[in-house]
């Protein structure tokens, strides 16, 4: 965990903190706009899980690939997706990353190695295997990271993909954000094993569980898996124990029939931002500087989105075929 973060300089850690804070503020803005009726559709914010996005993506190069899920804003930002075009997408503008056809659940930015948010739970994992296969066939040193949830780990696609990656030694990292719930279903009831990482044993791949609230722990574990993948030694499974502070989707309540307020509060004490601030012994001035820079970036993104025209009706019919 924090102790292992030898390889991270203070400057680097500050950058990582900044990215986590950018995600937090973007998600808060998204939630506000959703509640105000400006963003439509299904929105799943990742507040509480920022250390996973940033810890993983900080180990990657621009030409490495990620695939994400319905809860993918954080991964997108950490991989370098620009906020203005992302906000424009959420607001249904023609300048949006997906020309207003994808929305929150389908953000993709291929130029940044971001191969999309996929909202069919579990669908992204076989794709990751195929991307790893292409890297291997073309003798490239790139890796693909696929993000998925505790819930997704119960889809057949997870098991099929892990096995394929293992038998072919593909450069793929399976990164499971175990945020304790799939909508309302607690992981201790949905899943036979306590640590999802143990499932790697069934595929003769390394599996580790890390503290998903500590960005340095996520970073260290991922860096190791990435190094292994680049060497041609095959896939790894990393499970990060984390928590979504907000409801599942569409402004759902933060607690309800399936979890208590006390539980949410307990996890909030280990907010990944607080954990990183403590680690950095961050001063008030440093924090304010981060906040100020982000506020401007957020406002600029919003302005860009709002000033962009809505997508045209004809555009709905484009790109169905090449």
């Amino acid at each position: 965990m924090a102790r292992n973060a030898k390889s991270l300089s203070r400057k680097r850690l500050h950058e990582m903190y900044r990215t986590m804070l950018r995600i937090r503020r973007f998600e808060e803005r998204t939630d506000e706009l959703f509640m105000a009726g400006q963003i439509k559709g299904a929105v799943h914010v990742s507040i509480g899980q920022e250390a996973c996005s940033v810890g993983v993506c900080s180990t990657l190069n621009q030409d490495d690939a990620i695939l994400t899920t319905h809860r993918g804003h954080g991964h997108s930002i950490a991989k370098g997706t620009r906020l203005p075009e992302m906000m424009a997408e959420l607001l249904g503008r023609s300048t949006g990353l997906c020309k207003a056809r994808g929305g929150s659940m389908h953000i993709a930015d291929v130029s940044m190695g971001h191969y999309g948010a996929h909202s069919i739970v579990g669908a992204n994992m076989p794709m990751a295997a195929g991307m790893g296969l292409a890297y291997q066939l073309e003798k490239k040193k790139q890796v693909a990271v696929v993000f998925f949830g505790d819930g997704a780990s119960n889809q057949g696609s997870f098991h099929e993909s892990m096995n394929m990656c293992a038998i072919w030694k593909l450069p793929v990292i399976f990164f499971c954000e175990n945020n304790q719930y799939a909508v309302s279903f607690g992981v201790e009831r949905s899943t036979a094993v306590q640590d999802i990482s143990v499932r790697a044993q069934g595929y003769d791949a390394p599996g580790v569980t890390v503290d998903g609230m500590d960005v340095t722990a996520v970073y260290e574990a991922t860096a190791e898996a990435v190094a292994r993948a680049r060497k041609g030694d095959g896939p790894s499974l990393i499970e990060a124990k984390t928590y979504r502070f907000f409801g599942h989707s569409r402004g759902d309540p933060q607690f309800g029939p399936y979890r208590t307020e006390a539980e949410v509060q307990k996890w909030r004490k280990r907010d990944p931002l607080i954990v990183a601030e403590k680690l950095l012994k961050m001063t008030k001035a440093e924090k304010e500087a981060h906040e100020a820079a982000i506020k401007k970036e957020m406002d600029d993104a919003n302005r860009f989105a709002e000033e962009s025209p809505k997508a045209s009706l004809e555009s709905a019919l484009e790109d169905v075929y090449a």
Partner: protein
Amino acid sequence: MREILYRDAIIEALDEEMRRDESVFLLGEDIAEFGGSYKTTVGLFEKYGKERVRNTPISEQGIVGATLGAALMGMRPVAELMYIDFTGVAMDQIVNQVAKVRYMFGGKAKTALVLRTQGGAGRSSAAQHAQSLEAWFVHVPGLKVVMPSTAHDAKGLLKSAVRDDDPVMFIEHKLLYLEKGPVPEEDYTIPLGVAEVKREGRDITIVATSSMVGKSLAAADELEAEGISCEVVDPRTLFPLDRETILNSVKKTGRCLITHEAVQRCGWGAEIAATLAREAFDYLDAPIERVCGMETPVPFAPKLESHVIPDKDDVIAGVRAVISGL
């Protein structure tokens, strides 16, 4: 008569059937204390407990296979697949196992089960959460396919589906859940394979399914003012199909427009058009028209989404075109 929500009609049907028959149980994602992602199982967990209202992991293939397995043992499981889009994950079980086991076993298998799901656009849910895929299932011999358009039909048809000895795909619509309609308090069922004339008319028959029924009735109201009298027929079950009611209506009006939210090509409407072309050829005064979803995935942005999905005005325009012979 009292009026209740379409989603509450679903709950009532499940509740009554679970009370009546111990072998009926529910399984699906988030259907227990959460009450289902569209709130169609609220209160049932509290009433029947976790054995009979069973949360499943996110494993659609497993859900459908387990549903079939329990049915083979003589139970009457009702599974919920949260979105019809997710049937893609379970398609092998649905098409190759559920639909065919009875036939392949020489008729010696019990496959009394219901797969409840919901489809349709209208909530900006984008391409993987807004499809209308009913035609896939109508195409597979061995499956029955139901698409209720009102609270009344939802309750009566679901009760029949639970009691039916064949596998039934029961396809609800996400925008209809919050629509209210009259629903009798006493026990009733609506047989599978019986259409309903939702409105009588003289000049044209509109065959509409699911969400398009309400839009067609609204269109018929407006067209009445122009002196065009529309008959609206809701098949309610796409298979078995009540050809009789549709044919009789078209023979009477001499014109037909078919409308569904699903994309036009190879949609269920093509089957109806083909049936009419053969069985009602001599009665038709105009070509058969279809008003369906555009041939594209469903886009996210609300304006784009409503552009590709047919609405009341599209039905009106379609009817006018048929009547004026344009």
